[in-house]
Every structure is written in C-alpha cells, then in structure tokens.
C-alpha cells in the first residue's frame, strides 16, 4: 500500500499544483463546493420526458406534455411541477453524451470516469473526493451511499477505506451502530481485543489487501459507534414539517437523510432512484419515477438553500444515458436506451442556476452544441469541489489515473 500512501502525501501540495498547471481551465478559480449530494437516476432517465422536452414534436413526445418553469426558456416534463418551481437554482446540461449504451457500463463510467475493465476496479467519484479532500468530520463515514449498488460506490483500487458506507433503508439509517444492550462495555472491548489478536495472526499469514481492509474497518466501526454525530443518520429527529417538504416516498427519505448527512460533515452522499429503464410503457414508468423524484428534489434544494448550505453543497442529478426519441408501439409506448444525448443537472456549490448548457437537435437525438462527455461532467464536479482534475494518482499496479480521466470541466456553468 506504499504507493497509495505516497499519493496521499501528494495531495497536500494540490493548491500549488493547480496554480502551476498549464491549462487555462485549471488556473480559473475553483467552485465553492465542499460536499456533494449525487442523485443517481438508475436505469436511464428519459431526457425527453424530464429535462429536455421537445414541445413542438408530437411524434417524439407522445402523450407527454412540457410545462414552463420559473425560468423563461427552461421547460420540464409535465410530471415535474415542483421541480419546475426551483429551476432558477438549477443548471441543466442538455448535451450529455456517452458511448456506453448498456446499464452496467454506462453506470460504471458515470461513477468512475473510466470504461469497465476486467483487470481493475476504478474508484468511484465519492472515493476520489475522500481521497483528494479527506473527511470533513473524522468521526463518521465521509462517503455514504443510500439505496445504491456497492459495485459502483466502491473504493476501487484505493481500498475499502474509501468505499461508501451503504444504507439500505433511509428510515433505518446506518444499521447496527449501537452496542447491544446485552453486552457490557467491558465485554465488548474484550471481544474486540480478542478478535484483534486472532486477526493479527491471520493477517500475518496472509498479506492480503482485503484482509487488511477488514481490520481497518473494525477500527473505523468502533470509532463510529462512539461518535456524537451518529444522530446524522437518524431521520426520526427530523420534524414533521421536513417530511412534508420532501414528501413521503423512499427516495424522499433518502434525500432528507442526505441533507442531514452533509449537514453533519459527510463529504459525499449518493442516493439512487431506480426504475428508469422504461423500455416498456415509458410514460407510465416516467410518471411513477417523477412522482418519486419531484417533490424530493425540489424540497432538497429549498431546504439546503434555507439552511445556507446550497452555496457549498453541489447537488448532482445524473443517469447512465437517455432514451430514444422513437417510441416503440409494440412495447406499449416504450423507449430504448439512448446514450448519444441525455441530460444531467447541477445545482448549488457555485454553479449558476437558471441556465441550460448545450443543446440537442429538434428530436433530442443528437447533441447539437457544446457536447459534454461523461468525463467532462465528472471534471466539472471535481472542479466544483476544488479537486484538481489533472492530478494523477497511481494505482497499486503503478498505473496513472485521474478523477475524470481526460475530461475538462465545463467552466461556463460556474458563477
């Protein structure tokens, strides 16, 4: 692990490196975000039915209508009435483009900036943020994934220390963080000490990264158990008014929990909303997803703003690809995968609100101007966080990697 350790040291000289970097981009002032809430729309969110509607094209829109938002030229799908009222805080990127048209690969590259390989597991964005910027609150996990899949929220070659702490149910929070009432503190400590002895023996025999990771995780877990900030994970402490603001669905709870977590100093929170793979009966599917999303997202932005957190919290809405302008009659009005053009959102963290960046053609099939590759998008997130996107970190196999591969941040979105 010495390679990793030295690159940790390397991080300390970041400000200097960033200033010396040769490109104009890197010399510009970085974003003001300290934290990220990354909302991932899993399955491939239809850009046409959400944030890139084509109101004049009936054949593309099918039964979906577009509605006006509180920003003049920004329209959204009809099932996003609450979101429409907060678009002044949001930058819509309509020109996302990718070549990964399968879920696994698309999801992977969005999370890691790299294409999947059989030989290496790349760290996820959250792991990069932890690696490059460290924890804000050292007592609780710096990276938390709610309702997400562990494959794309892993620490990759950075190791388990950088992996997200998984939360399966926002209502239950981080499970099992309290010592059972049946175990005295003494007994608990003795158990740990004994287990540690056994593990040292085992670790001595097997110098294996994963075995080491578990040893480290025990230390982390016991630190966490003693933390005052565990309440960050407890939704029960939220007043009813907050529940009303965010709505009652599972994703709403996830967003509310995400806000609690960033408030308590978690660096990166991912919340997933699945079910966007609307090959079959797209319009019913999108309506259902939007009902989950709409109030939660709008509530989150409003809440962050009223707490003064929005300026240094970047809220990302991402997905692995869009969906086809063609509507498949034979699949009860379904839409298939469409990576060549899709939409993602940025809000807060120094990003300008009330703007659209990039444009697709009249059908929403191809990007017409200002294309944003997946890596550019991730470089933009990095920039918002003040992470130098050009900083190289070596993997344990001595290969060079960067948070956004060769991506360049989209500077126009920053205020």
């Amino acid at each position, binding site marked *: 692990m010495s390679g990793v350790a030295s690159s940790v040291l390397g991080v300390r000289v970041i400000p200097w490196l960033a200033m010396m970097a040769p490109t104009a981009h890197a010399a510009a002032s970085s974003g003001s975000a300290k934290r990220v809430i990354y909302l991932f729309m899993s399955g491939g969110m239809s850009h046409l039915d959400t944030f890139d509607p084509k109101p004049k094209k009936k054949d593309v829109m099918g039964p979906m209508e577009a509605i006006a938002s509180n920003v003049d030229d920004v329209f959204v799908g009809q099932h996003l009435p609450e979101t429409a009222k907060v678009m002044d805080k949001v930058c819509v990127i309509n020109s996302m483009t990718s070549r990964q048209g399968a879920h696994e690969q698309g999801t992977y590259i969005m999370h890691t900036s790299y294409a999947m390989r059989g030989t290496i597991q790349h760290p996820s964005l959250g792991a990069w943020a932890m690696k490059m910027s460290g924890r804000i609150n050292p007592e609780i*996990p710096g990276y938390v994934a709610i309702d997400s899949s562990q494959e794309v929220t892993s620490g990759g070659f950075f190791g388990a220390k950088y992996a997200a702490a998984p939360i399966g149910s926002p209502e239950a929070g981080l499970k099992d963080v309290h010592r059972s009432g049946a175990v005295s503190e003494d007994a608990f400590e003795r158990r740990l000490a*004994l287990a540690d002895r056994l593990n040292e023996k085992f670790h001595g025999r097997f110098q294996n990264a994963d075995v080491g990771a578990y040893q480290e995780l025990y230390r982390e877990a016991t630190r966490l158990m003693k933390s005052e900030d565990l309440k960050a994970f407890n939704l029960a402490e939220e007043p009813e008014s907050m529940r009303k603001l965010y709505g009652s669905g599972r994703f709403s709870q996830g967003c509310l929990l995400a806000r609690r977590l960033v408030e308590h100093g978690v660096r990166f929170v991912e919340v997933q909303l699945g079910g966007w793979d609307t090959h079959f009966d797209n319009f019913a599917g999108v309506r259902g997803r939007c009902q989950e999303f709409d109030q939660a997202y709008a509530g989150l932005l409003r809440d962050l703003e009223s707490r003064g957190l929005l300026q240094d919290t970047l809220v990302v809405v991402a997905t692995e690809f869009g969906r086809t302008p063609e509507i498949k009659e034979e699949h009860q009005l379904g839409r298939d995968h469409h990576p060549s053009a899709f939409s993602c959102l940025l809000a807060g963290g120094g990003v300008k609100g009330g703007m659209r960046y990039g444009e697709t053609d009249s059908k929403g099939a191809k990007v017409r101007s200002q294309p944003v590759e997946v890596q550019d998008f991730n470089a933009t997130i990095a920039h918002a966080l003040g992470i130098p996107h050009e900083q190289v970190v070596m993997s344990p196999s001595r290969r060079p990697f960067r948070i956004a591969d060769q991506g360049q941040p989209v500077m126009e979105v920053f205020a």
Partner: protein
Amino acid sequence: MDAVMVEGVRTIDRRVASWLKAEKKKVPEISDDAVFLRRAFLVTVGRIPTAEEARAFLDDTDPEKRRGLISHLVHAPGYSWSMTNWAFDLLRVTDRKPGFNGSFEPYRAWVARAMVENRPWDQFTREVIAAKGNPWSLEGAPVGYYLRDRGMPLDNLANTTRIFLGSRMECAQCHDDPFGTTERRDFYELAAFTHGLHEADRSPMRPLWDELEEGDRRDSWEYRVARELWDRIYGMSVVGGGEGRIRLPEDYQYRDGDPGEWIGGRTPFGKTVRMSERSQANDGRAQLAEWVTERTGEQFASVIANRMWARVMGRPLYDPVDEYQDAEDTRFPELVRDLSRLMVALDYDLQRFQWVLLNTRAFEFAPNPEVGRFGNGEDLMGRPLARLAAEQIWDSLVTLAKGDPDQVEVPTSDGRFRVNGRLVGGGTLSYENVYAEVMELGSEAAFRKYFADLVKATQSEGSGGGEESSMVAMGPRGGSGGRGGLVRACFLPSPAPRDHLLYVFGQSDREIVEGGSREPNVGQVLTLMNGFVQKQLVENGDAQVFTCLEGVEDARERVRRIYLAVLGRPPTDEELSWMMDEVRISGSEAWRNIVAVLVMSSEFVFIQ
C-alpha cells in the same frame, strides 16, 4: 463416479503439474484437513460445516476421506441450493420489477428445480432460449427468462450471448464494437432469431377491463378476478417463437444496410445458421438454441467449463469468465481444451464436472497468499484468499443458528389460483389451467362468458377460509421459515430486501449478470459486531452453536466445540489459552463472547 471422471482428475493433475514445472514454480503445499474441509463445504454446498460434520471429518482416519467427503457433498441437498444461488445470480432471477404485476415464481421455481435435478447445462440452455408455452406449466415456466426482460429484447439477447457463450455484444446494440470484431449488423442479424416476442392478444378481455377500470368498480370482486387475468394470465404470456428476421433500427449508421430494412437471421460465428428476411418464421429461438449449444465449436463448452473452474478454484482460467477466449490465447491452452472436452464427455453434467475439479490436486493446494484483489493474472499457484460471497456468509450464519439447514423440501411453485392473494374455488383452480383456458378464448363474447363463470365459481367460496399468501417466498412452505427467516438465501426474496444482511454483504441486485460484490464496507463489520449476528446468534440461546455444548462440562472441550462449529477446526494451544482466560474473567458469559469473537474474525469471513 465413472472412468471418464477418474481420467479427468488425472488429466488435470498432469496438466497442472507440467505447467508448474514449465514455469519453474514451486508446487504449492497441500492444505491441511481443516482448510480442505471448510473450503470443500463452502465451495460445494455454500455453507460452513456444522460442529458434528467437522468433527466427523477431522477425526476420520481413512486416507481416502477427502474423496469421500467430496462425493458426499456433491450429492448433498446443499449442493443444489448453492447452485441455485449461482444460477439466480447468473440469470438475474428476481421476484419483482417495476411495472410488472405478474409472478416470477414459476420461473424461479423452475430454475431451482433444474439445479436440484442437475439438469445438463446444454439442455438447460436450450430450454431457456427456446422457451415457449404456458408460463405456469412445468414445460413453459422458462419463458420467465424473457418475461424478466419484457420490452428489452435486445438487452436480453446481449445477456444471452454473454451468459451462455461468453460473447459480449451489448456495445454492438448501438455501434460497431471498436475493440472487437462484432458489428452492429451482426448483432441485429442475431437478434432476428429472437425477434417478435410479444404478449398474447388482450382484445377479448379489453372491453371488459376498460369497464371495470372505471372508478367505483375497482372495489368489486369482478375487478379483482379480472386483475388476476389481466396481470397473471395475459400479463405473463410470451408469444412468438422467433421470426428469424428483423428491421435495422431507425438510426442505423453504416453503409451495409438502410434504416428500417428487413434483414434475415445469421449467426456471427461457429457454423452459420441463416434465416430468411422474406418471410416470417416461428422457430427462430429454437434454431438459436440449437446453434448456441451445438454449433459454436468449443465455445459453449469452454465458457461453462471456465465458469465451473472459477466456482471451484476461486478464479477462472481466463478472465473475465464472460469473455470467451480461444484455448490457444489463454495461458493454459491444453488445460482449457481438456476442460472443454471433459465438459462434453460428461454430457454437460455440472455435478460430475465439479466432482472432477474437486478431486484434483489443484483444489487441495494451500491458499496463495500473494494474490489479492490486484492479482497478477491467472495462475495455478493455489486458491486466492477471498471473502465469502454474501450467500455463503448468510447460509453459514444460518447453519450456526439452526444446524444443518438443508433438510427441506424441494420447492415447487404453488400455482393455485388466487384472487387478491386468497385461495378460491376450494383451491382446485390452478393458474396453469386458467391460462390454458383463457388463451383459447377467441372472442369478446367467449371471454365474457368465461369470466362470468369464473366470477361465480370463485365468489361462492371467496371469503371463506382462504389461506393468505404473499406469493413471493418460494421457500419451503408451511411455516419452516422459522425464527427471523432463518433459511438459506435461495429461499428468501430475490434479491433480499435492502435492510438484509445479504444486501450489506453485496448480494447481486439482480440487475446485471453476476452482479454480486465482495467489496468490504463498514456496514458489514457493524452487522457482525452488533447486528444480525449479535441478535440472532450470540443472544439466541437456542442457536445450534450453543445447543451443541449441552452436557459438556469441561471448559476446554466447550471452547473446542465452538471452534469446530464456527471455524471448522480446533483451537491452537495459544488460542485455547486466550479463550480460557476469557472463561476465567467472564464465567458463563464467556461462551457468547467467544462465539462473537470467532464470527468477527477474518478467518470466518474469508475462504482459504
């Protein structure tokens, strides 16, 4: 065992030995009995041995006992459940998906039964790819493979080639593969074989359904009965045997075809099978199944052989398992070729094939400590140390809590017709029969008559004593679920709910092929310290790991038994002295603490 199997073991041993020699590698040591025992159990039946099982093996002085253990394990019921987990992960078998109100239960039960019956892999593959007919019947149930991916036939096909042939074609859905040889046209030509899957025509029912959907009729019994037919009869129908032709997509971008043009089926490699673009056939999937299993040269056999090698040896001979490599291009050309041949010689019998691998020297090698997650490629230097899969951890914890969890009935799909989850008509109606009858109804009038009769037949007993059922858990019915659902993973919902231990330890979400993860995270450690393990095991006085201590007074012997139960080995002298210290300090509480400590140990969560 037969001569082919015995010869198979010899051949593999010879190949491995000559590879080690040629590479000038030291021959790894042979694992001791305890490591062998635990490994054999986890690999073969997917759980740790009970204290009894461990002791019986370790105390046995028969020099042939390893071979005896393997033969016992591959024929034990646990083998089927372990293979069921494997198949669920591979095929993404799920209980529910958004927008689908039918039932995946018959399909799920069919997959499990195929594993229980050790269905030969080529036959299994054919039955899945060519599936047709009544989804509620034993023969038709594999249509669930297509039902699972309804509306996404191209993804389904990409998964089919990935799973059964180790060909990754998903990129070619949209463009020529820049790294490989597959062109977008190739993909569509293959898709032609499966094209045209659709639901049965709902028009006989639609007028009635539209009437019932009107507001206030939704609470009526008629509506509920209709709902069953709409969702679980029509909604589960998969019609169309494969047209053999397909239109190029509207955004087709290459010179060799025009958007919207009909193209006929053509297989991309192996012995070419073609179908005509001029006429609509109905046996494309049968032809595809035939091609996959019979006409792709060594590919079909090689991929499943490599998957089985990875399952038994902890890593594949070529990596990843779902990217087929010609034997010549691998690091072990002879071995890869031999394994393909063995697979064919054993008629794709995965049980016998695994028996062969389990009896090789390579399976006995001591774990290779050098190889971690960032391994330096494939070698034959011993099994990499790896964390147990989520299902192995769960099934092992269940074993500690309940003892041998495998004495259960073979699951069957309960296909009795229900309305709103209630048995009706005295439980004599089956979905299978209703499906067959409804599919015969050719007109609206015929449907209305049938429906009226069905409503009458179900209403008469509608409220009386019907048994509630979730229709979700396949598992052994009749209350053997036991404390907190302490049954093997393959009997729990698939995937398990997100607050379950299986999720925390990375069980596949069934969205992607082999989606399970062994990545460590802090939640796992918390579960082991404070969660499930504490509540269902350490504090559960009825847990097998405690009941096996009954009547044993001697403290050392008690420690020994706990060690056997949790780690499958006796304690070392040093460990024994540590544990005896704990006994002196904590008295009767010590046993709980020792169990907790051993389950928290890395040795428990890793397979050597």
